[in-house]
């Protein structure tokens, strides 16, 4: 302790003690120089690292993209990490079945044509039991018997009917996937697959970061990115501001399939409207004057399925949409319409002095590994080109 104090005072240019060994002094100097060199090196390296932010409303697929990055450009998930996802996946199952069960009850009370939401008598007891489990603090292990019961309830017509009204409840997107794989999930030696992990729904809170380089194998790129993932619900957004300094690119996720759903944190607000307002807010941030914007129109796979049955104009923002054709062409039309709307928002909220920032729109579905890989290669290319361009100018 005393020695350290001496060192500090010594550094300040005061003579601390005369009997100090000059050799020790020398070693000390050597050490501090080494530390200084390291710090310098690191800060140099820091400069090369590009900061990427994943922003977007809740449940827009930010964390799924984040997981994909981990899978694609990092070591991926080892067995321990995969197994860490078991409780998450099981929690997803229990919570989903509870939401569906309670939702069917609610719908049967509120809607006029309620008979189809009434669970058959033989499944009622199972439903009550599962609902109770879903509301408890610690979930039991998903045994074969429990999985069987959940599956029975899932197959119940009332539950299926409720599921088709899922946009009014907060049913997670992974519902169908997990419900169809219940038997596998309940295996005693179950290890989640990559797909399971990608499908697992976890509400992110706070900030998570990861560092990666898109071209892992041949190291040609050399570009290093640090990607930040954040929570998207309203309460989480107050934390974003801490990350806004020095961002190279914002990856804004917008789940385009959610045009008929309401927010998790506010049942009275359409998710698409919220996304629009949020996008406007982010675009106006003074910190992002020179920041590139990568807009991911996410969940295209779900969008594709939804468009034929739910018209796009249920959402206030897309009120003026008129379906022109059917089938695949219609999906394309709808997608182009949404894309145009987002483009409009971008240009309306980009002041003339900021026009030189990069803006790109990508069609993604975060679950599709190949697509995400391709998209990221494109993002990487755009950003590198942008850097070269800036370097050339300077």
């Amino acid at each position, binding site marked *: 302790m005393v020695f350290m104090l001496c060192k500090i005072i010594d550094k300040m240019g005061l003579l601390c003690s005369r009997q100090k060994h000059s050799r020790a002094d020398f070693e000390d100097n050597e050490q501090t120089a080494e530390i200084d060199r390291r710090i310098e090196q690191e800060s140099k390296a820091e400069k090369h690292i590009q900061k990427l932010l994943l922003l977007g409303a809740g449940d827009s697929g930010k964390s799924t993209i984040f997981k994909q990055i981990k899978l694609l450009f990092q070591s991926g998930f080892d067995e321990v990490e995969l197994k860490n996802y078991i*409780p998450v996946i099981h*929690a997803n199952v229990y919570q989903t079945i509870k939401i569906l069960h309670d939702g069917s009850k609610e719908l049967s009370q509120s809607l006029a044509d309620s008979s189809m939401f009434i669970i058959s008598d033989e499944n009622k007891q199972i439903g009550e039991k599962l609902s109770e489990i879903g509301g408890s*603090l610690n979930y039991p292990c998903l045994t074969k018997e429990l999985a069987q019961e959940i599956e029975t309830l899932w197959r119940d017509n009332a539950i299926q009917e409720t599921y088709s009204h899922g946009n009014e409840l907060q049913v997670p997107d992974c519902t169908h996937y997990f419900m169809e794989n219940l038997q596998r999930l309940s295996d005693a030696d179950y290890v989640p697959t990559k797909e399971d992990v990608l499908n697992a729904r976890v509400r992110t*809170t706070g*900030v*998570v970061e990861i560092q990666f380089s898109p071209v892992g194998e041949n190291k040609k790129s050399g570009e290093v990115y640090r990607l930040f993932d954040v929570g998207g619900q309203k309460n989480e957004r107050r934390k974003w501001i801490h990350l806004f300094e020095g961002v190279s690119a914002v990856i804004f996720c917008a789940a385009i399939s959610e045009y008929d759903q*309401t927010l998790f*944190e506010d049942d009275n607000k359409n998710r698409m409207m919220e996304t629009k307002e949020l996008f406007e807010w982010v675009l106006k941030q003074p910190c992002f004057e020179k920041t590139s914007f990568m807009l991911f129109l996410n969940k295209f796979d779900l969008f594709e399925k939804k468009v034929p049955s739910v018209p796009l104009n249920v959402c206030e923002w897309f009120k003026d949409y008129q379906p022109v054709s059917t089938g695949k062409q219609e999906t394309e039309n709808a997608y182009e319409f949404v894309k145009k709307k987002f483009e409009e928002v971008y240009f309306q909220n980009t002041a003339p002095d900021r026009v030189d920032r990069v803006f790109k729109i990508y069609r993604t579905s975060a679950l599709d590994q190949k697509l995400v890989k391709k998209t990221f290669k494109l993002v990487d290319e755009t950003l590198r080109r942008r850097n070269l361009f800036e370097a050339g100018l300077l």
Partner: protein
Amino acid sequence: MATCAVEGGCPSDYVAISISILSMILLLAKAIKPYLVHNIPRPQGRSFWLIALQLFASFNLILSTVMALGLLRTNMMHWWNNCYLWSVWIEGPLGFGLLLGCRILQAFQLYNLFVKRRLPPIRSFLFLTLILFPWLASATFIHVEKPLDNRCHMGSLWIIPIMCLHALYVVAMVGFTGAIRHIEFRFQELKDLWRGILFSTFCVGLWVVCYILNMAYEDIELIQIISRFLLLVMTSLLALSFFSISISQPLVTLTSLREREHPPSAMMGRALGLLPDSGLLVEWDSIQLVNPIEPLDKLLLNKRFRQSFMEFADSCLAGESVHFFEEVQQLDKIPSADHVRRIYMARHIIDNYITPGATMEVNISHRCRQEILSTLDLAHPNLFKNSLNELIHLMKTNLANDYWSSTFYMKLKEEARMRVVERELEHSGWNFSHRMSSIHCADDPFHHEHSPGKFGSSSCHLELMQ
């Protein structure tokens, strides 16, 4: 003498005006002082507007009295010397009505919180507008009927209904206060309130007498001069006394002044006489038992673990869930029979963690939030159960795994190891005696004054942390 009674500007008038100016300055000083002297952050939202509105109303009331009664010798022909402007609009809706409206609003809020045990069913702004409506209506009516003479006096036909309106609001306030009288308040708000009401009813009574005298006996000059002198002085005193009644701002006066060194989240618990944790013995035993296999909600009951976990969560900007957990834990420590303290704590938690846009708002579903905000019983033991449940799941799925591989957990483990070594060194001859005495001081947190002295609490705390 003969003219000054009619035109104003008698010596007594100037005395009255100086008294009213003095009281206005005092009023302002009183309102601003805590924020300037003690550097308390400016109150936000509702509480700030209520204070500002009251100041505004008091100012209007005094000024309108001066102008309407003609205390100053001014040219009556000026457009701004309009009787209806001063003695009807500014004195009525913007002065007396607004002032009492704010007070009634506060009493109404307390009534809802502590008697009905629910959050006020109507937004404060809306309530205030509603309460001001009769004033606005009658002011419009007078304005249309034009009963005032050129000295801004009205006939006795008008005085009675107008005085009734004034009295009605005083009665309403006394009524609401009466409804909450049986509650034993934590911060002595009620005592203050009663004192204020007693004094202000006295003032109002005198004020009414003066007003009637002033209006009715226009011919007797002495009565004119004396009554308007008294009127202005009473108005000033009324405004001053009204503002001094501290109501629903107990945190400013009691806690933030004395316990500023603590983080704001811990303040409410302290103010209510709860120490953050007094389970010292449990802590010693359990520190080595931190085991990732145990469910998180059990682990979080351990104070040392919770601290470490909170530090971790704060470091990744996700701390509000853990803070919420801790505060709900404190709420659970309050016996369920102690409604008042439970309501205070519940309201504090709602204001800080639940309302949309709150500073520490937690990530819970719409349903949970609505369930709490529309509760019919703020003292209900399971008020926060569902949201806590959701948040524990959130922490489990989102934070826990990262925590186990973080340096915060490493540190905790290291600490636990050191403890074990220490204990082994001391063999079995562990002497608890001096620790016992330290526990004793925290053992009975409820006997502490609600604002434990700075030294008392911190020294106690130090020993606990040792």
